[in-house]
């Protein structure tokens, strides 16, 4: 099976749990054969998808405003972006919208956008309605899930969804074209294996 390296960048306000999501994803079912990365800002995990192996190279970004200007360096060349908000913080959902906008304007073409409403274990103090998030995601054609890094809810699913949206590699194509269309076609085979 061919291994495809996919750069995924994590965006979102500071404190929404970006790195917790990745840590959960990478460290559950940890494969000891793969040399771990030096820290949690950059992590990798390989998952099978169809007849390919997807190696996610996950780039975490600093969510503080002061680092905002560095973001383009991180999302450049990404196959997918996971934008994380905190369902208990309305502000973080606003920030999310700004990221979506920025990606649309300056991000890579056909980047797969996934929206993760983290901390769904704290739905008592919820500020962002699930419905709002869903509607917004639909309007921009993004994946949307509510996750809990703490309780390991929907973390695997989030990345599986991304995997499915990545167009299978066609020889002499870099996989950056027609993400959506091809992604749907590949649903059939991938669901079997993932």
């Amino acid at each position, binding site marked *: 099976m061919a291994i495809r390296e996919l750069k995924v960048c*994590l965006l979102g306000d500071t404190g929404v749990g970006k*790195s917790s999501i990745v840590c959960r994803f990478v460290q559950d079912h940890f494969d000891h054969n793969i040399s771990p990365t030096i820290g949690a800002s950059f992590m990798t995990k390989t998952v099978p998808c169809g007849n390919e192996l997807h190696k996610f190279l996950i780039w975490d970004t*600093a*969510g503080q405003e002061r680092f905002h*200007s560095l973001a383009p360096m991180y999302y450049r*060349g990404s196959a997918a972006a996971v934008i994380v908000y905190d369902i208990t913080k309305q502000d973080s959902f606003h920030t999310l919208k700004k990221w979506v906008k920025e990606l649309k304007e300056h991000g890579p073409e056909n980047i797969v956008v996934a929206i993760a409403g983290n901390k769904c274990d704290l739905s008592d103090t919820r500020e962002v309605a699930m419905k709002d998030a869903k509607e917004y995601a639909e309007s921009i054609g993004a994946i949307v899930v509510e996750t809990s890094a703490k309780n390991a809810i929907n973390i695997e699913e989030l990345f599986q969804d991304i995997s499915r949206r990545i167009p299978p590699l066609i020889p002499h194509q870099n996989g950056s074209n027609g993400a959506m269309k091809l992604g749907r076609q590949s649903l059939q085979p991938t669901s079997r294996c993932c």
Partner: protein
Amino acid sequence: MRDERRSFSHVQNTFVSLTPYSDHQMRRYTRLTWLDKGQRTLGSAGAGLSSSTAVGTAWTRTAASCELPTTPRGGRAGRTEAVQRQSFQMTMEVCRPGQSFFKLIDTIATEIGELKQEMVQTEFSVRDEEELIECLSIEKEMAKNILVEKKAFLRDSGYESVAYKPSILDKLLHTHPVWLQLGLSDYKVQNVLQEQPPGTFLVRKSSKLQKKVVSLRVPEEFGFCIQEFVIRESSYTFSLEGSGISFSDIFRLVAFYCISRDVLPFTLKLPHAIVTAKSDAQLEDISQLGIDFWKSSVNIRPKYPPPSSQPLPQGSVKRQSHHLPLINGVHSLRTRTPSELECSQTNGALCFINPLFLKVHSQDSGGSLKRDSTRAQEANGIERAKSPPPRPPPPSINSHRTSLQLSRAVPSEPSMPETLINNRHGNLDSPKNATPIPPPRLKKQATINRWQSNDQSPSLNSSCTSSFDSQPEESPPQKPMQNMNVSQISNSPVQGTLRLQRLSDMSISTSSSDSFEYDRMVPAFYEGDSLEDCEEESDQESMAPPVKSRKKRATSLGFSKIVKTHLRKVSGVFSSLVTPEKKMVKKIAAMARDKCTYFGCLVQDYISFLQENKDCHVSSTDMLHTIRQFMTQVKNYLAQSSELDPPIESLIPEDQIDAVLEKAMHKCILKPLKGYIENMLKNFRTADGSWNQLKENFLLVKKRTPQELGVLTPTPEAVDVEKIRVKLSTMQKMYSPEKKVMLLLRICKLIYTCMENNSGRMYGADDFLPVLTYVIAQCDMLEIDTEIEYMMELLDPSLLHGEGGYYLTSAYGALSLIKNFQEEQAARLLNSETRDTLKQWHKRRTTNRSIPSIDDFQNYLRVALQEVDNGCTGKTLRVKPYTTTDDVCHMCAQRFNVKDPENYGLFLYIEDTWQQLSEDTYPQKIKAELHSRPNLQVFHFVYKRINNDPQGIISYDNDDDNNNDNDADF
């Protein structure tokens, strides 16, 4: 471990030379058991994979030797088996886990001494009667030669040619343009092979499978005429699918399958013309033909089936058996072929083939001649062959370099006098068939004598050398005495001698064996260069210079000098096995220095061009960019050109080629340019003032507390910062961007460790980036800036998405935060991509202006240079509030390197309109005025041609340095 590994193979080799004939089953059993045992032993000694590989290697050779050609004769088997068993038991005993290998060597050597005596007798007892009679009765030189020759034929394993000189591997290397046809289509291969006899093969890349395959012509009985065998390329090796034997390159693979069929229906056969070629020149002529060879008249096609048509009277009978379809029965006919190893039964065990094996057995198959022990003697012999009077041997036999040069200079070396392995001690000095000149024998004899007398000499090498040097003609031909010699040796005192002698045999032939191919092309640089590399680029922490440590370890063990010297020689084999890519890099680096090659010219010219034309680049980014481009282009050229001979695909697995070429580029381009690049980077920075600016900012940021920089976690202590500084200094000494990045990763790892502070918490970028910024500021090294740019621009683009790329990006980000610290707020204006962010910033700036004072950021002005062909580049200038537009224009002309400043002017671009600023206005005042407007608009100061129509050329992305850099890289 290295030492042990070496000594282990040492033992094996020693053992090999004495292993008696054995029956098939026994052989296999011992081999497997040995392998298993050896692996366990080594494993318990902490050997790991590499050593088990070594075992495999050594054992392969051993096993091969077991199968040395002898005539199978009844009555011998029992005896042989006993001997074999004995040796086996002995081995088992000795191989107890944890036991020192050195001790093992000694024990084995001693025991082998005894064994050897037995074997000598065995040999005599089993020897063909007439042969024996002959052997014993003929005492004259000529007669002996004839005998040897005859024996050679009798022991012929059935391979085509008896009398060729270059080894199979040599032939393959020389003639690869003929059989290595990577680009050949499915259809064409059919075309070529159809008319060839079965066994003929081509190596090509199948377009269907996208893999390399061996296309083999098979007999019509198979129902089709070509069968293809896929070549599997794992990370560092080549192997046939279904086989457990791996090779470091295609040549070794093919050479092996020319000798042993393993998973093939039969062995590969080289075309007759190649097999019978007797000199390099002939091979050269053949390889000139390339693919046309197959249809040319040179390719004599003996009628199919060809075996009997071969004009080699003596070997023909056996040869025929070799051509029979190879089914079970045939195996027994072929048992005596030295190389008919059923290695595939190791069931997937990784098993490198010792080059010795091919070397030795290609000769066995060729003339059934065992290579004589010393290269020096070989060289000698060859020279003798050319000009009868014996010449003094080369000054030193233990110089690696010498052997390299020799192999280059004397490619026909395998034709040297050879002894059968089983005969080896008895016939140590049997002269080359047809070359009736005895001197090598004489010398050998002399050497032996010498050894005997020098038994206690601390260095076998020196005694060897001196014996060659000082008394080459010493003892006159004592030809028939050899056998006697050996049989006399049965007294115990001589054992020591025997051991020494064997050690030397082994080590010398080993050191010669690693030289047969590409290495020899870099004789002059070989050692010096590797040392230099070690010193310059090795990182003390992780990669200790192998050479040094090896020596140290050997010394510390107080290991006998004799063995030590030999071990060192053996190491050659391992380096040849372990790092084919290192060899490739060296080869390319050597080629780059050789102006006779197109590639060398290209590289040298480029390097001198750069060094002589310091003004040819407008910025550091521009310079590094062109260098990177050049490296990429040259890499592509090398990957495609035929200048690399043999082609790189045949030596390096495909997925490794790019990495190997990249390494080579660093070595041949970046290494010589490193000093120049560093200087230039500094010059650019000094010239545009950014060096000073960075210095000031470092001071400023250094004063801030971690909290002010947004740090919420523990930070590295002063000690750790010092460690990081040391690493940064080490980084500056390296030329390879990849190695620099490795160090950067170590620095980051250290930072993580400090942050985690045993808490076990994982920190993401939210926490890491502020700490990294803090640490970089604390280190206060201006060179970080140039280092990062060097890495960012020169790192292999394929690595930019990985971990190295990530932390490089982070370091770059942290540094640019520091660079923009004073003008943090002002810079954000230009860096931000959306009006939204700008508006937010404006709100913040007006409410919270305590951090950067208005004066601070007013001292800087961001100006973009717009040019028709180049797009925009941005620069931040120091512009005081009372600096006029005229002054700013002068600064711009200087900074942007504009040759005709009179044609340029400073413009304000706002709301899609252009306004040229008049000379006496104050840009900072204009900026302040714009900032204070209630509705902030995006505006830019642009330095551009006055008459140029500017419509819509400017865009956000292009107007600042950061983005330009990124565009180039990501």
